[in-house]
């Protein structure tokens, strides 16, 4: 009796194992799980599609109709004659400030932290501090810009009653340069950390100094990674609006028109693409073509920002493949 139960138990187990191995039973939980994952990922992609479709659908017609006029015209009170030149000019100068100030400072700090700094308490504190700075909301950098740059620059115009005199293109550029600084440092540090140690040792082996090794071996190898990170942070800076509102950017037209490259405007009031979009989006949608004008302005900003992102992503993928 006992023997036969054991036998049938073994038989049962054997059948079960064979069935599992042959996979004849439909795996319901696995299917549901997998389906919900694809559903989640699919909705993420769909949302991106909806954002793009919405903006492109609304804006492209307007953009093609107005064309060059839209890009080179000044802001106006009528949607049909609205132009975004002032915003483009401000965004261009913000980009210049980020490239000129944030990139050298950030890459320099990354080189110091990765190549020179000993593992001291101060170094660890600086690193923790940089990680935290990267997580500080952008609007807080606006407060910093308002307190330091706007107020400080206001000191140059003691007789003025206009509290906005310090709200200049220079203040905006400096604020956003500081905003992206931690991101530049973190991405550049990662790129430098990924340089194989053997490369440095080879350099030292032939008698190079520390700086020569960094200059001729480490930096060239880390360059694509550093460039990718800086490009992503540039894109981030060009799309920021909140800090600019805090330091008193103009939502609307600046008045007299100066050309793209005049240095004088660094000391004048500013606007930028994200600010113009904010202003346009706040206009009532049912009057005139404001909806299309907003979407067209967004389209221009998106082309710039996504182009920078795409170049960065392609560059990274290219070098990852080459080196693996």
């Amino acid at each position, binding site marked *: 009796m006992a023997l036969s139960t054991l036998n049938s138990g073994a038989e049962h187990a054997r059948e079960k194992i064979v069935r599992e191995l042959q996979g004849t039973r439909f*795996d319901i*939980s*696995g299917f549901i*799980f997998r389906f*919900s*994952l*694809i559903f*989640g*990922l699919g909705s*993420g*992609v769909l*949302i*991106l599609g*909806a*954002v793009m479709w919405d*903006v492109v659908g609304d804006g492209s017609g307007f953009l093609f109709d107005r064309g060059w006029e839209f890009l080179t015209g000044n802001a106006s009170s009528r949607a049909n004659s609205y132009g975004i030149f002032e915003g483009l000019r401000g965004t261009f100068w913000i980009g210049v400030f980020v490239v000129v100030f944030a990139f*050298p400072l*950030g890459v*320099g*700090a990354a080189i*110091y932290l990765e190549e*020179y700094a000993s593992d001291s308490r101060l170094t660890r504190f*600086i690193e923790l501090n*940089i*990680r*935290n*700075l990267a*997580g500080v*909301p952008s*609007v*807080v*950098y*606006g*407060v*910093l810009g308002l*307190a*330091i740059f706007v107020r400080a620059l206001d000191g140059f115009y003691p007789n003025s009653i206009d509290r906005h005199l310090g709200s200049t293109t220079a203040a905006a550029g400096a604020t956003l340069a500081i905003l992206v*600084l*931690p991101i530049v440092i973190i991405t550049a540090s990662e790129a430098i950390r990924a340089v194989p140690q053997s490369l440095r040792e080879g350099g030292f082996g032939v008698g190079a100094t520390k*700086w020569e090794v960094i200059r001729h071996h480490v930096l060239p190898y880390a360059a694509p990674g550093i460039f990718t990170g800086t490009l992503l942070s540039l*894109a981030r800076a060009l*799309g920021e*609006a*909140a800090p600019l*509102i*805090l*330091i008193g950017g*103009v939502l*609307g037209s600046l008045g007299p028109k100066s050309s793209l490259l005049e240095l004088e405007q660094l000391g004048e009031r500013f606007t930028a693409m994200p600010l113009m*979009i904010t202003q346009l*989006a706040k206009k009532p*949608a049912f009057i005139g073509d404001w909806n299309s004008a*907003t979407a067209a302005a967004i389209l221009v*900003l*998106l082309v710039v*920002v*996504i182009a920078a*992102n795409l170049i960065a*992503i392609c560059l990274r*993928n290219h070098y990852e493949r080459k080196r693996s």
Partner: protein
Amino acid sequence: MRNGLRTTALFSLLVSILIVLSLVFEAVTFLNGIKISWLWGDQWAPPFNEYDLKTPLVGSLIVTGIAMVVAVPIGLASAIYLSEYAKPITRKWLKPVLEILAGIPSVVLGFFALRWVTPNIVQQINPQAPGFTLAAAGIGVGILTIPLIASVSEDALSAVPNSLREASSGLGAKRVTTTIKITIPAAISGLVAALIIGISRAIGETMVVFLAAGGGGNQAQFTTSAFDSGTVVTAAMAATTAPSDRLSEGVALQSLYFLGLLLFIITLLLNLIADRFVRRVRIIY
């Protein structure tokens, strides 16, 4: 060379010190300039000396909550699929899509939330909802947070050594069992970090809420309903300096430093906690 580079590294410390100093000094000036009873009322309206703190704080809570309801399932599912299921070729094409989503400026999503999410989602659910709602802002912020949660979670899942998955498969576990019982528990501290970083990012997001939730410029009524217009900490700060009919001067202008200090402390705490969780993952593997 060394000292020059060292100065650039120390510059980041200077930035932190300046942030804290400027926030604390002006926030203290603000608190000295008002009566404490002004901090409790029924609206946040600096031009009228009404600084009801619970208005922006509860607004932030509502918006962040909705954002997490949107972002956590989508972000987590994307991360698990990309890390555990996707073939290399699928991953190669899908990851850049999420990265592009991460690169979209927040003002664009603000416009999207205001002009698309409000009529097509919010007002479908609640036809009485006004044109500016916390719900639309929350959904917009959620979309903005998806790529961040997805990428931090994916890093955590990829850090789990393959030997764990292989051991589980070797014992006869199905892929879904391996993922739920082995991989996710092994990566749990990284996933918690992703959630906290997402919350911190959602609280700090300004433009989406500024565009999609704020009806009346620099003035917002206290509300606990997601289908009302309202404000959050960040948007209230931006509204204080944004050009409008009622400019804020003096004490009213300083209110933004006080909110800034609150925001800075909240996000700093969240980031420090997340940092600890991320480091735990690195220490284990």
